[in-house]
């Protein structure tokens, strides 16, 4: 099986209130070295074995069409053997 590991983050420059809250919590615990936190999403899509480049194209398409909102989000993914 192949697993696409998809990472979705808010675009650079888009305010991330969740990340800001988490950063505040880390600082209050004494982790002052943390300069910034961005909270994103992680998804695993599982496929039967198949043509890797075809699956890559499909995952790209899925990310563009539904998994992300391209106005505010970026994504990357990797495909690994499951």
């Amino acid at each position: 099986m192949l697993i696409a590991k998809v990472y979705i983050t808010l675009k650079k420059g888009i305010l991330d209130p969740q990340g800001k809250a988490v950063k505040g919590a880390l600082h209050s615990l004494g982790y002052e070295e943390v300069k910034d936190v961005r909270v994103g999403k992680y998804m695993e899509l599982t496929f039967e074995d198949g043509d890797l480049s075809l699956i890559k194209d499909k995952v790209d398409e899925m990310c563009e069409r539904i998994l992300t909102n391209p106005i505010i989000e970026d994504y990357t993914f990797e495909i690994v053997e499951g």
Partner: protein
Amino acid sequence: MKFAVIVFPGSNCDVDCYYAVKDGLVEEVEYVWHQEKNLSKYDVIMLPGGFSYGDYLRAGAIARFSPVMEAVREEAEKGKFIIGICNGFQILTEAGLLPGALRKNEGLKFICKTVSIIVENDKTPFTTRLKKGQEILLPIAHGEGNYYVDDKTLKELKENNQIVFRYKENINGSVERIAGVINKKGNVLGMMPHPERAYAPLLGNTDGLYILGSIVDNFVKGGV
């Protein structure tokens, strides 16, 4: 004239919309399940608030692929009036029928209260009972109402007078306090505040009728 209130799994302001039309406007109204593929018999389409599909993935992201959304797009192209309120606004942006996106509120809190809204454009079919600069009170109830557009799109919105409502004060972090926008053609409105919760003295507020009533005043059979 006949209104349709689209019901998605997880809609929860559909009943408010229904009664705002039935009792507030005294016009015909029907619920339409999200599997419906033809909306041609309706004159106005309302996308209500709520949490369609549990807001999974992103607010409105899954609802926009419901069969009914293709029909909404068709009627929008014909020029019929479409109003998306709260979650309905989120669905319209996800569907690309309106520009921008709605992010989590700046303060991360779900905000449920009545706020002052400033009318920015009184020339739309949804705002002719209002005056530019007029202040009205409407309830808001959202966790993701923080409107975002990039600078280029913001400039276009301004050039085309597409910003219809602004919050008087910064409520949720929205770019330029935008609370509602309209499409370029001028027949699809999206707004976070809830006019359908303010249609009767019994509810303590009738300001929503300015907006819903404008739709009736400007109705043109078959679309604009």
